[in-house]
């Protein structure tokens, strides 16, 4: 069973961390794939909330955007976006929020705003969106990012969303912050004090590769777990989901004329 790629390994690793009944705040891309994989395998009662306002969606294919029509059609209900942020996220009803970013630092703080100075950026990124308050208020945050020294940096260019920053406890943030960072070379978790350390690797990926992919001297937990490779069942479900998605998105859309 070695016929999987690193994206698949990451997706499966993230999906396994979700439990049945867990309320997740889902972003597009790998988090959406991981959540729907979990829902289609071990966690059928997973509650998916997309920030567009859909609660309890059960899409048969992965959405391209966070507001695809299928999310509304398969939702338990569709509520105004302001309600999602006030009455669900801020109110502490989200168990797990997923985040990615352009940069992460050793405390799990994230940058999705700019590379370079804010007033005159080298690269203008999309910005916060829901991330700032997901980072503050979801009970746990799962960060999913491919590791490289350019993205796992010693100093962020801009802090969009807070991880285990100093003073978090008194900041008014209701959630616990990042509890895990899933990368393509292994899994990091915050240690007492909040600094991330490597706690697990994937089959065939040496610890040294993980350390080389991180732009600061990465702490390594005393015991390193090796994550089990994706099972046949997991891979089959994930690939079928992706195949359905590609087929659906290939269907031509007619101009409304």
């Amino acid at each position, binding site marked *: 069973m070695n016929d999987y790629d690193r994206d698949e390994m990451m997706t499966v690793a993230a999906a396994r961390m979700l439990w049945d009944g867990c309320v997740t705040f889902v972003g597009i891309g790998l988090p959406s794939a991981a959540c729907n994989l979990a829902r289609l395998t071990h966690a059928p009662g997973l509650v998916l909330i997309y920030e567009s306002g859909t609660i309890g969606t059960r899409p048969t294919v992965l959405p391209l955007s966070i507001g695809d*029509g299928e999310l509304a059609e398969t939702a338990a209900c569709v509520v105004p976006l302001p309600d999602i942020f006030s009455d669900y996220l801020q109110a502490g009803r989200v168990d797990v929020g997923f985040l990615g970013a352009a940069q992460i630092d050793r405390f799990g703080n994230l940058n999705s705003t700019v590379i370079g100075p804010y007033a005159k950026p080298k690269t203008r990124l999309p910005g*916060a969106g829901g991330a700032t308050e997901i980072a503050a208020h979801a009970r746990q945050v799962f960060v999913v990012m491919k590791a490289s020294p350019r993205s796992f940096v010693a100093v962020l260019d801009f802090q969009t969303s807070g991880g285990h920053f100093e003073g978090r406890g008194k900041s008014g943030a209701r959630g616990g912050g990042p509890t895990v960072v899933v990368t393509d070379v292994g899994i990091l978790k915050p240690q007492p004090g909040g600094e991330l350390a490597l706690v697990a690797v994937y089959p065939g990926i040496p610890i040294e590769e993980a350390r080389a992919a991180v732009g600061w001297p990465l702490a390594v937990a005393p015991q390193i777990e090796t994550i089990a490779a994706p099972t046949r069942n997991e891979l089959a479900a994930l690939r079928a989901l992706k195949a359905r998605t590609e087929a659906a998105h290939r269907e031509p859309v007619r101009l409304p004329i």
Partner: protein
Amino acid sequence: MTEFLPLSEAIAKHVPDGASVALEGFTHLIPFAAGHELIRQGRRDLHLIRMTPDLIYDQLIGMGAARRLTFSWGGNPGVGSLHRLRDAVEQAWPRPLELDEHSHAGMAAGYRAGAARLPFGVLRGYIGTDLPKHNPNIKSVRCPYTGEELATVPALNPDVTILHAQRADRRGNVAIEGIIGAQREAGLAAKLLIVTVEEIVDELPPAMNGVLLPHCTVGVVSHCPGGAWPSYAQGRYARDNDFYLRWDDIARDRGRFTEWMERHVRGTSDHRGFLESLRRVAA
């Protein structure tokens, strides 16, 4: 009384240069036709407001229509960057763009305050972020009961909000179905609300607990079928994900962008003409 106007007249009459304008709709029901009409009529110095600028604001910004942007996430959803927005911020092309940058939760609170005609919105937000360092609009207030400090945003009250919806009746009641994002709040927050609709019917069925903007909240209705494309209208037509992908190529290059806009938007007289010009390309 709600006015019924062709879109070109609605824009000509109600959206002057320099206006603050919110075109809302979260992925769904984005009022593309109205945005194109702003470009056709050569609007300048607009203060554009929108949670997720999307392609329509990329186009407005790239055509130099905007002076300022209030937003919380500026990307091509599921695809990547908005190249025209980036070019304006990074290179001031075709002109500089002031940013009033928020988080989604902050903008939602601003629209809600605007809809209620309160001067500010309160949220437990902007925690652990550098945004307040760069946006003086983000302030705080102390809870008179607990002493906690909470973030505030100024109310958003656009001069004009433009929405797209499935249906209106002849009195000006507007019915929306599906994902609504902050459409309701942005619509009620506006000094004037313009709605483009797929269809005008004699009478809407009672909405009971559905989403309806009563005619007393709607300033202008314009009949504009297909007016959300390449966004979508639940129950009518699907999101053209493929166009969102293709836009990445079109918008990446200043020349190619300008040519596309001149040909399909400025070179057509209305939304039907726009869609027809694209059909010819596809054929």
